[in-house]
């Protein structure tokens, strides 16, 4: 696996807005190779919104998101080449087979490696289904297919939104092993989860606290 060990992601005073209201108190953190962060918070605290802003999909935030000391919008190509985001919507086409889905995402990264796809599916115990249409799979199996991308597309920064949802114990254990391997190889992981994850080494927690409403008046000249 090719890794650039000097990649850094830095977040400064980031808060996300929904209907013009800040969702949580500004957070700051930075991460480098081999680090993992779990974002915690109650339902509606803005975990998913935060991840979408981190990926540059959403711009409803205030604060800085820096990839190797540059604004992510300015180094989009480099940032996206190192980023894998798996959200609530898994991005799988129900009318295509498992293999076709994974193959397409490889093509978008200008690679084509069928062996690694099959290997990933094998690890996830869905290798036998590789030519099955995604639409015929169960929710847990679909999640496994989406997570297979972390093997089939070797990149350094994983952003996973609730990756444990719909996975059985075996699947969760696999994910934890994969995360540990990734961190040992010098990767970075940001994930959200309701449950406490014990199997991932050195996972730091970041808690999102709801905004203290009265303090927002201090921003007198309006927001943005």
């Amino acid at each position: 696996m090719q890794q650039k060990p000097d990649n850094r992601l830095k977040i400064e005073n980031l808060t996300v807005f929904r209907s013009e209201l800040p969702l949580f108190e500004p957070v700051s953190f930075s991460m480098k190779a081999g680090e993992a962060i779990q974002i915690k918070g109650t339902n509606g605290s803005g975990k998913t919104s935060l991840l979408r802003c981190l990926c540059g999909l959403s711009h409803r935030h205030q604060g800085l998101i820096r990839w190797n000391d540059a604004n992510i919008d300015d180094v989009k190509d480099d940032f996206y080449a190192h980023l894998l985001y798996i959200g609530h919507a898994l991005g799988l086409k129900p009318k295509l087979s498992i293999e076709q889905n994974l193959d397409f995402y490889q093509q978008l990264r200008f690679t084509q490696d069928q062996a690694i796809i099959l290997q990933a599916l094998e690890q996830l115990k869905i290798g036998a289904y590789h030519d099955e249409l995604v639409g015929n799979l169960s929710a847990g199996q679909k999640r496994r297919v989406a997570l297979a991308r972390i093997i089939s597309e070797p990149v350094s920064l994983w952003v996973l939104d609730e990756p444990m949802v719909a996975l059985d114990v075996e699947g969760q254990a696999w994910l934890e092993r994969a995360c540990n391997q990734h961190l040992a190889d010098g990767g970075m992981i940001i994930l959200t989860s309701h449950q406490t994850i014990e199997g991932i080494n050195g996972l730091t927690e970041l808690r999102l606290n709801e905004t203290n409403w009265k303090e927002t008046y201090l921003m007198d000249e309006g927001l943005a």
Partner: protein
Amino acid sequence: MSSPLWSLVKREISVVLRSQSEFVYPLAFFIIVTSLFPLAVTPDPVQLAFLAPGIIWVAALLSILLSLNGFYQADYEEGGLEQLLLAGVPGSSIVIAKSAANWLVTGLPLVMIAPLIGVLFNIDMQANWVAMLSLLLGTPTLCLIGSIGMCLTLGLRNGGVLLTLLVLPLFIPVLIFGASAVQAASIGLDYSGQLAILGALLILSIILAPHAGAAAMKISID
């Protein structure tokens, strides 16, 4: 390896063709709507021939409008669109690829079947030929303009109704010149001017629509 844009078009088409409904429904809609007019207005061949250009064009326009949803909505909800953007595919390429696929799957069959409708409506060979030509030039424009409206309404609850309100006024020039070309041909007048304008509208929409659509798509995904 083939170019990314073409692989995107191929993927769109293969996805859509697998579900058949995207391909068959607009075509069936086109045929059924046109066949309602003789029942509703008159079976008189002379009058039908007079009405045919307008009927064919209005029905084609509505079929295209109907087909737009299938190319964007599911892809948006399943998270495919955001993955494409995250893979660094420019939004304008996505719009071009989807419009191309949309036209190949919906527009082209309409063009092919239009002469058949023309025969049912008793218009002569020359006008039939012009109907095909005008649809060939006009339907891609409709797909492109429609894609802007579609991208604007992606995440919305009543997107379908809103799409109609947003897009139909923008379709009017294409409708006017398309129907008028067929009409001119059916009474033996020169129709090259109308076709030229349809071509100009197509070029203009190829240049502008992908950018507007891409901007709209980013806002909808935001």
